[in-house]
């Protein structure tokens, strides 16, 4: 009996040690959500206020951190273990996550920004539990709404800028305000009946083509969709009766230097963009984001923005249509040709007229 009791107790202890969280357990997101899924969970904050400790796991799962397989303790590195015997299974005096642990180029770039000067931290712009994938997934208007317009009223400070609202719609703020980052033309397909951008799969399925986008349209195999290849793409869209607009915008490359936001020193020289040899229009990307949110691009010659299939984008000088200039040149050459020939013929025939005048006066 004694032996049996020992066995029962031993097995029960083993069972309980697995069933109940012990003082030391692997810290995964599920264990954090044991408490942080409670939307009433709060902590005391300064001046008698409280701060929510709730984490919306669905938002987190849709965040770029989750895409990159980052976990809660990947940022909250001070939590190495959870003690389930305590009221709070970890220290309540945790330091803020150090973004520079991973973003080791971005944070130094931010440190040289006007945001750092004004003590605007990462969290002031990026929702710390749900940082969104910026590159490619958001239009310029959405980016403004998600980030800059939360603090800035751009309209009030850009009266000097001709057609400022057009610039706000098509040029990402960082193209001018983070001049150390490079920029490109971003092409997207916008479904005008459903008012949304199409994913890469929707584009490929709609075009009824198999294989990769580049294998189908990069016919010369140089790794970039040229302006001529872009024309083929536009024609294919029309053939398949796509109810889409090809939309173009100017976006930053979203490298680390896109966080070095400046106020003074922002680009205000129009010819950086409005010029036939603008570097910004040298590179482009067609967005082919996958259904699970993974951002993919097809490299495109930025000059494809001058294609007539990109019907509502036009940047003076930069995306001028060369064929139109050839027609214009022919008109001008033809006009001057007529003037030169006619005036030459008048000069050449002057003796004829003088002779006739002399005969008439006799």
């Amino acid at each position, binding site marked *: 009996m004694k032996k049996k009791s020992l066995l029962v107790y031993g097995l029960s202890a083993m069972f309980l040690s697995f069933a109940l969280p012990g003082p030391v357990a692997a810290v995964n997101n599920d264990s954090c959500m044991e408490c942080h899924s409670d939307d009433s969970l709060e902590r005391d904050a300064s001046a008698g206020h409280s701060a929510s400790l709730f984490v919306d796991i669905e938002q987190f799962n849709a965040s770029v951190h989750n895409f990159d397989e980052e976990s809660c303790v990947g940022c909250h590195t001070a939590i190495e273990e959870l003690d389930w015997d305590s009221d709070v299974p970890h220290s309540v005096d945790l330091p803020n996550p150090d973004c520079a642990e991973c973003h080791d180029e971005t944070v130094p770039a931010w440190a040289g920004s006007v945001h750092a000067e004004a003590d605007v931290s990462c969290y002031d712009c990026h929702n710390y539990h749900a940082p969104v994938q910026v590159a490619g997934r958001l239009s310029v208007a959405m980016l403004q709404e998600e980030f800059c317009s939360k603090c800035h009223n751009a309209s009030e400070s850009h009266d000097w800028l*001709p*057609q400022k*609202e*057009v610039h706000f*719609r098509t040029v990402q703020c960082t193209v001018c305000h983070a001049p150390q980052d490079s920029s490109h033309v971003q092409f997207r397909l916008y479904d005008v009946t459903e008012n949304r951008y199409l994913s890469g799969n929707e584009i490929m399925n709609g075009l009824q083509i198999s294989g990769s986008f580049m294998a189908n349209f990069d016919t010369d195999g140089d790794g970039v969709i040229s302006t001529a290849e872009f024309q083929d793409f536009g024609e294919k869209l029309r053939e398949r009766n796509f109810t889409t607009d090809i939309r173009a915008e100017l976006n930053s490359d979203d490298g680390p230097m896109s966080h070095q936001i400046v106020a003074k020193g922002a680009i205000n020289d*129009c*010819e950086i963009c*409005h*010029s*036939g*040899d*603008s570097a910004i229009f040298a590179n482009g990307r067609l967005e082919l984001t996958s259904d699970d949110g993974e951002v993919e691009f097809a490299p495109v010659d930025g000059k494809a923005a001058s294609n*007539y299939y*990109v*019907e*509502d*984008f*036009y940047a*003076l*000088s930069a995306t*001028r*249509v060369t064929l*139109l*200039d050839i*027609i*214009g040149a022919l*008109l*001008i050459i*033809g*006009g*001057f040709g*007529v*003037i030169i020939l*006619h*005036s030459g*013929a*008048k000069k050449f*025939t002057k003796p*004829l*007229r003088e002779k*006739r*005048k002399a005969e008439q006066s006799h």
Partner: protein
Amino acid sequence: MSHENMEYVHPLPVRIWHWVNAAGFVLLVLTGFQIRFAESLGYLSFDSAVTIHNWVGIIVVFDYFLWFLYYFGSGKIRIYYPDLATFIPRMIRQARYYGYGIFIGDENPHHMTAENKFNAMQQKAYIMLMFVMVPLQLITGLCLLDIIDYSDLIAKMGGLKIVDTIHVFLFYFFAIFMCVHAYLATLGHTATAHFIAMFTGWEEHH
């Protein structure tokens, strides 16, 4: 100044309209080239060229209304309407004069009067210019002046690229039209006769 062989064919409102329009178009063409070929031309900065182009464009729109109100208000607009019964033979005669007769000393078949100001070729050209091409250029220019306010009109015309294409094509047309127009104006009885007349209003008969 004796007006014995002279006829008053260019009233003051027409002369004001004409020269404001001419100066405006010269500025629009110069700034237009600078805007379109910013990397190759450097006689103005891009933003100065855009600012001048916009303001001059607005002046030219108002100037068009001056032309419109004067000609329709006075009823003189009929000088632009060709007489359909005689139009084709008159045009052939005029084309023959410019292509051949002018070289051998023939007399211009058209005699300018206040009521019959334009020859058949001018009527054909100017009716197209003033009723189609200039209004189209002004409308597309206004659309491009504020593409958000005029977005509905731009969409009706086929989108921003189409509106821009019309504007640029007409820009090239007007650029060369002004040169040909100035050359043809030298073909009066003296090289400067028509130019002077466009300042004084009086054309001399020969």
